[in-house]
């Protein structure tokens, strides 16, 4: 029996749609799950709030608490001026959170275990930060690379470090999410493969398979945490980066 732990990340094209130049665009499993994410988030935040109940039900409470949580996170990082980015941060957070949670359903597909997806989101944040910073503050925005109160003779060095660390942000921002999701899903798959492999050796194997099975349960619990934490980390880093665009002088 051969179980490939990488096979779960395989893109499967269901329906070719069009070609742009030499590139093929197709409806694939990633696209399907992205649509499922949009549908799930919409159900939670639009479907259950249609009644606009003054005394919220359970699901409306959940939607409201999420709203207030994200709003509070963004406001504590960027202040009141950052609230114009609230829909963006909220969408980003919910998109990643639901991608990670839906990806944990067995036989489903983890959208965030695709580097191109996380890199796109990280670059989107990066360019919003740069674009908004330059649009709002003009060239004075570059003060973000010049920390206050640094002696003049180490300043060039510090500025260089700041610039490099700023430019590498999209890399760490995207690879952190991608790597966590990839590794978690591989670990689950490997333990599952162990269960099947050991279980294949008759009665004794069934008992032996209990250990990796318990590991699956524990890893799954951990991955639920990681799914939420990584979505939160991505969102709060976005807030911190946005703060650089809004308040470049710190």
């Amino acid at each position, binding site marked *: 029996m051969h179980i490939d732990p*990488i*096979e779960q*990340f*395989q*893109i*499967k*094209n*269901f*329906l*070719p749609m069009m*070609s*742009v130049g*030499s*590139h*093929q*665009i*197709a*409806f*694939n499993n*990633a*696209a399907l799950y*992205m*649509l499922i*994410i*949009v549908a799930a*988030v*919409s159900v939670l*935040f*639009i479907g259950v*709030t249609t009644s*606009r*109940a*003054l005394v*919220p039900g359970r699901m*409306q409470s959940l*939607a*409201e608490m999420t*709203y*207030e949580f994200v709003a509070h996170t963004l406001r504590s990082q960027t202040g009141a001026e950052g609230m114009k980015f*609230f*829909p*963006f941060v*909220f*969408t980003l957070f*919910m*998109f990643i959170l639901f991608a990670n949670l839906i990806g944990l359903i067995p036989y489903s597909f983890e959208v965030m*275990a*695709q*580097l*191109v*997806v996380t890199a*796109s*989101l990280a670059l989107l944040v990066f360019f919003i930060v740069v674009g908004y910073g330059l649009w709002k503050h003009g060239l004075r925005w570059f003060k973000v690379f010049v920390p206050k109160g640094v002696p003049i003779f180490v300043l060039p060095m510090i500025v260089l470090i700041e610039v490099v660390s700023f430019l590498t942000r999209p890399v760490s921002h995207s690879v952190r999410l*991608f790597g966590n999701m*990839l590794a978690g899903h591989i670990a689950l798959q490997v333990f599952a493969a162990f269960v099947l492999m050991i279980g294949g050796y008759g009665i004794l194997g069934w008992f032996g398979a209990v250990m990796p099975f318990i590991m699956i349960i524990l890893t799954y619990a951990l991955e639920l945490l990681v799914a939420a934490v990584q979505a939160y980390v991505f969102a709060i880093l976005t807030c911190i980066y946005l703060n650089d665009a809004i308040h470049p002088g710190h």
Partner: protein
Amino acid sequence: MATTATTSTAPPEQGGFPPFQSQNFPSQLFWLALTFVLLYVLMAKVALPRIGAILTERGKHIADDLEAAQRFKERSEAAQASYQEALAAARGRAQAIAGAERERQAAAATKMQKRLEAELRERLAAAEQSIGETRAKAMGNVGAIATDAACAILERLVGKTPPTQQVAATVADVIKR
């Protein structure tokens, strides 16, 4: 699995590690952009304004209720205060009425007492006067009787009638002494 149309351009599912298969990137980017923008529009235009409105509405409702409760409390306290005031006023008036009545009755009693006392004093005086008169009359009679008796005694002793004037003067003199 892959359809024949995609396999015709490039063998898609043999390029090593799936997340690095660049022939799938355009599809993923396309769908990511589409779904992310769709979700952004849904959240920014529908969901978040609605939830924000719900929260604002609830906050306003709670604030209004608290304010109304405060207003009712103030009103009830005012009613309580005015009740206390009215009660105190009524009590004061009752005490004033009671005091006035008491004084009036006391005055009436004093007056009646004085009148009775005066009457009694008058009667006492009248009685004393009549007693005095009676005694004076009695004393006057005593003089006449003593004079008659002295005359009779003298007549018996001397044998002749003494001058009444003289005897009477002497008797009056003796009585006086």
